């Protein structure tokens, strides 16, 4: 089985983007399969990706949702792909992983339906899509709740070891214990919030592995109500604006 993954996020570091992250989770059950990944943002990248798609058994589109539908460069790619398919038939089964910043994963449905329509127009088998809501938050907590606490504990351990041979063993021990508790809480929250994502995306990966046909399915941040989500999101935007020396009052500029 030859799998081609097409990443449509225009951000740098495709695999670290939110849609890239979800797609990589779905790829866990695909380990051992022959997989190739391509970015499909710029025209110059299209031809190489199209060449590989010709012989693919499975194509996985990984795309963010822009204004309720597919991003413009993906529409461009699909149009070009249609011309290619008219020349030489593709036989690949189509799967889609789509992400949006809103809480409801269902808001990805229109983008998934667009690719479904494209598949039907080109006589390709659309086999299902996964829509993930709250993707910005799910992406951010990888860093704030997982990597950052681990890093802090590691730094504390190193500092502690140095201090043991120095002068303040008691103080460093207290810091290490506190940070281990922090680490435990942070990682716990990360796992709780991401549980839906992990379950649904890995399950979707198994569906792809077996090349099953399923209905579009959706997930979002688990164990976090909509209002708590809005609170976290607002806090995130305010802090990001502060990094650019923009105060909250300026954010509402008309």
């Amino acid at each position, binding site marked *: 089985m030859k799998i081609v993954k097409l990443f449509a996020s225009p951000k740098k570091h495709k695999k670290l983007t939110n849609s890239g992250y979800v797609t990589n989770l779905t790829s866990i059950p695909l380990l051992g399969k022959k997989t190739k990944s391509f970015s499909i943002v710029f025209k110059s990248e299209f031809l190489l990706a199209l060449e590989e798609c010709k012989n693919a058994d499975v194509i996985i589109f990984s795309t963010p949702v822009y204004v309720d539908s597919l991003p413009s460069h993906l*529409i461009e790619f699909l*149009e070009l792909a249609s011309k290619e398919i008219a020349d030489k038939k593709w036989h690949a089964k189509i799967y889609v992983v789509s992400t949006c910043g809103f809480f409801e994963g269902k808001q990805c449905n*229109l983008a998934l339906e667009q690719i479904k*329509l*494209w598949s039907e127009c080109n006589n390709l088998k659309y086999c299902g899509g996964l829509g993930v809501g709250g993707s910005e938050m799910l992406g951010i907590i990888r860093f704030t709740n997982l990597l950052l606490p681990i890093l802090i504990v590691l730094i504390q351990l190193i500092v502690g070891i140095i201090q043991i041979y120095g002068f303040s063993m008691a103080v460093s021990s207290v810091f290490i214990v506190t940070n281990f508790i922090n680490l435990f809480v942070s990682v716990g929250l990360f796992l709780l919030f991401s549980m839906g994502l992990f379950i649904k995306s890995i399950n979707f990966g198994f569906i792809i592995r077996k090349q099953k046909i399923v209905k579009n399915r959706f997930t979002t941040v688990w164990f976090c109500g909509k209002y708590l989500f*809005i609170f976290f999101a607002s806090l995130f935007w305010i802090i990001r604006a502060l990094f650019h020396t*923009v105060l909250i009052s*300026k*954010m509402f500029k008309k």
Partner: protein
Amino acid sequence: MENKDIETVIIYDINYQLLSNLENFRILLVDVNKPYAQCKGCFGCGVKCPSHCVFKDKIEDIGKTVCNSKKIIVISNCVYGGLSKKVKRVWERCIPGVLPFFTFRNKEMHHALRCKTNPELIFVFYGAKSEKERGLAKDIAFANATNFFNSQCKVFFYENAPNIEECFKL
């Protein structure tokens, strides 16, 4: 023309030459065939330079203009039940018209509005090949109207590309 003087914004992908008296109205005509930058989804328009796009080209203020206008007409070839690539490219650049913050509308989460003008939104699609495509285009148009402006939306379908004067009267 100042941004706030513009009453109608027309975004179109049809070949068009300004023939009639449309110049007399306070209209911004956006021809999508020009080489505009592509939205990167960075939300710099929310946190870095609020209400402006981070890309400095001729449509860097389009978000602000559309959210202050009274009527927006989008004329586009219907491609896989949505806007054509070039119209979509400009449409994505309108995102500075909303705030990065979230709120609830129609029991769903959407962006909070930057302006409360609630412009009338008209989508004119041409070249749709099937009823399914028309249905999807309609769904996307209504979703855009709720998400962007919390306003009413009209959707029209033409077999062939219409002319702008005709659309202006819709």
